[in-house]
């Protein structure tokens, strides 16, 4: 398999199993792109992640597009975008048709109660891996911890936290 095709097939697979959305695919995607294949450096991967925090738009789709762009140019970027939302949207469309038919059934609530904790563990794992990516030192980890505390303890908009993180970085604190 040539290089872009392997990436796109992997993205399509991740799209189908990305319970919890964007964060849950980050650890696997990083291992595949940085570790197994060495297409990007750890810092490139972290940069793609940082950029989609700072711009509006569908950020999971944009992040995989940036990875695709660095692996194989614009065509790979577009194919990566399609592979990221196509399979999961097909699942959503089908599930929506079927789900209603089985509403109020007991097994539906059991499946949801069973799947939720796994999803949550995957989401936290995604954040943990991104907190330690690249050359993250103690100052960087302190910023991550502060962001967690402020998100949980206050009603401050995440946008301000992202801006503050960028400012601290620009000042050369991290």
């Amino acid at each position, binding site marked *: 398999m040539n290089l872009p095709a392997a990436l796109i097939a992997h993205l399509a697979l*991740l799209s189908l*199993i*990305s319970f*919890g959305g*964007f*964060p*849950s*695919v980050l*650890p*696997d995607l990083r*291992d595949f792109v940085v570790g197994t294949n060495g297409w990007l450096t750890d810092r*490139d991967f972290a940069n*793609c992640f*940082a*950029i989609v925090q*700072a*711009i*509006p*738009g*569908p950020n*999971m*789709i*944009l992040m995989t597009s940036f990875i695709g762009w*660095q692996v194989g140019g614009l065509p790979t970027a577009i194919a990566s975008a399609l592979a990221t939302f196509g399979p*999961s*949207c097909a699942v*959503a469309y089908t599930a929506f048709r079927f789900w209603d038919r089985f509403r*109020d059934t007991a097994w539906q*609530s059991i499946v*949801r*109660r*069973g*799947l939720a*904790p*796994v*999803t*949550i*563990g*995957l*989401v*936290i*794992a*995604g*954040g*943990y891996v*991104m*907190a330690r990516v*690249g050359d993250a030192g103690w100052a*960087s980890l302190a910023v991550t*911890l502060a*962001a*967690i505390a402020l998100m*949980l303890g206050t009603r401050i908009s*995440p946008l301000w936290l*992202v801006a503050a*993180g960028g*400012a601290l*970085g620009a000042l*050369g604190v*991290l």
Partner: protein
Amino acid sequence: MAYVLNEAPAGPRVTLPALFTTFLKVSLFGFGGPIVWARRFIVEQQHWLTDQEFADLLSLCQFLPGPNVASITVCLGSKLRGPAGAAAGLAGFIVIPWSIGFGLGALLLHFAGVGGLRNTLHGVSAVGAGLIIATGLRLLTPHRTRPMALLFAALAFVGLAIAKLPLLLVVTALAPLSIAAALTERAILR
């Protein structure tokens, strides 16, 4: 929980351009949590769903794979106007915002190695990781009294983050066991 999503909406028929522009706005305003904006436009401005219907749809989409808002777009578009509605909503959600975001981001990536920008991105990345962890912890709160739920959340975390196992393996190994555990909980409750 009941999903009352397939009933025809009251009021006039929703047009395809309306679906396109609404989800375009959701996507473009989507800084720091598109769900907030999705609720504002769908419930408060367009009155396509009530608050309860929106909450039901969101909980279905959180349970599905993929970006939650993309799934909401597909489900709501399909409810209001069938396959064409799903396509119109999805096109609005993706095409223009993707083009703008990709252009901006490609420019930033091109200069990502330059000193000041490199440091800024580093700070943004550290905060982004914190936002994700905080979201996960908040989602965990309603399950904190269920030992089995905490166990499976911990196993999923360790499998993916510490043992660095592939996502496919973690999901296929843990999901059936966790569902079985939820089934046992229910049997005990009875």
